[in-house]
């Protein structure tokens, strides 16, 4: 009985893996079409809507905090004393 369960589980695992592999073999198509991106293209969605302001606040934080990097703007400089 135990062997049967084990064989069945093995069969299900094998079938699932095969299906998954077959699925993966299909190329993934871009799922959001260009004509569906008007919301993302709206100016209010731009994270860098005000680049000069973003550069300033990044500089303020870099001068007052130890963390740096990955902000998306060039850091550096001083005014740190």
């Amino acid at each position: 009985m135990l062997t049967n369960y084990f064989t069945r589980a093995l069969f299900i695992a094998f079938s699932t893996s095969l299906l998954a592999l077959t699925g993966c073999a299909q190329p993934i198509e871009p799922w959001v079409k260009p004509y569906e991106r008007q919301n993302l293209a709206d100016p209010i969605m731009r994270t860098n809507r005000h680049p000069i302001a973003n550069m300033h606040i990044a500089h303020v934080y870099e001068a007052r905090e130890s963390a740096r990097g990955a902000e998306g703007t060039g850091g550096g400089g001083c005014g740190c004393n």
Partner: protein
Amino acid sequence: MNQLGEPKVPGEVVVAVINKANKANYAKSRQSFLCLLIWLVFSLSLQAAVLEEDRADVLYHSYDGGGMKIDGPAILLRKKASESVALSAYYYVDTISSASVDVLSTASAYSEERQEGQLGIEYLHDKTTMALSIRQSDEDDYLANSVNFNVSHDTFGDLTNLSLGLAFSDNEIRRNGDDLFEEQSQQYRIRAGISQILTKNLSIALNIESVADEGYLNNPYRTVRYIDSSVPAGVGYQSEVYPNTRNSFSTKLSASYYLPYRAALFLHYRHFSDSWKIDANDIELSYRHPFGKTVELELKVRYYQQTQASFYSDLFSHQNAQNFLARDKELSDFDDLTLGLGVTYLIPKQFSISDWRSEVSLQWDYITFNYNNFRDPTAEGALGEEPLYGFSAHVIRAFFSVYF
């Protein structure tokens, strides 16, 4: 009924029906044409990579808090030289007058000016954008020269953008009042990023950046304090000593979401750690809401928290207590909270210069800093038992932007 069993209809009715059918066909084909046009416009704007539009920004900035007042102007200019090349220039001035707590405890208030200039060039080839910029930051006692290179590429039906960047900075450190003092440091940065459109309303981005410093990383003016029973005050001071290297790694995860009533929600989370044993996290949530066609409101809340550097202490037990010594509050254990408000007014075309689109913005941030292991030595209290330090700052940016 005719021979085919269809109802007989008068000639005018047939003409009317044909006209109606033609109109319906015409409307349908016009609708199809409009759909095709919209599709083409979005295809072109989102599939073919394009350089950002020409713009000029003029800004006044101000930081006021913790005994420091920093303000000045900044200008950013960006112009396409062709469809594939854009040039940019940035000029920024900080006028600083400082009487911060750590300056007041061991020195006197000072004022200075910092000027920063940047020149950049961007080149677009197919779906790849390359950007090169050089930058100089100059003040009486600090000169930084840096070069920055970035490359980004749109792929996977333009649902994905990959980017890589490198930067190098060479710094010269001096000490006012000491002509013999001159030190150097270098900084290397490498960064990578991926941004991905997930749904028609949601996009996310993952950015990582590693920064390596070497050379003189101290502040040449700052001191640490230690218990010194040989003097009446019971406290002695000596210069800070930092390691000559620092390596850090940051990971930032961002999400942008378009709300159904035309508003935008942004979420950022960043984790930071470095070889000085500082761990930091910050999380920011912002919301942008347009009112009509002329006003945009932005609200922001950000929380930041960090642990202290392994060689930091508010009060050392004796002189030369360890190899490395720091009492810089930016290296202590602290957190800060920012509340921000911004308003942008899109100036109607009839009031614009040469029909150029322009806007005026005002942003205000209120930041509160709470230090968990940095005491205020100017306050009343026994040595090492003074109240913990904290302060708040007002940060203002007022700017005018024109697109031409």
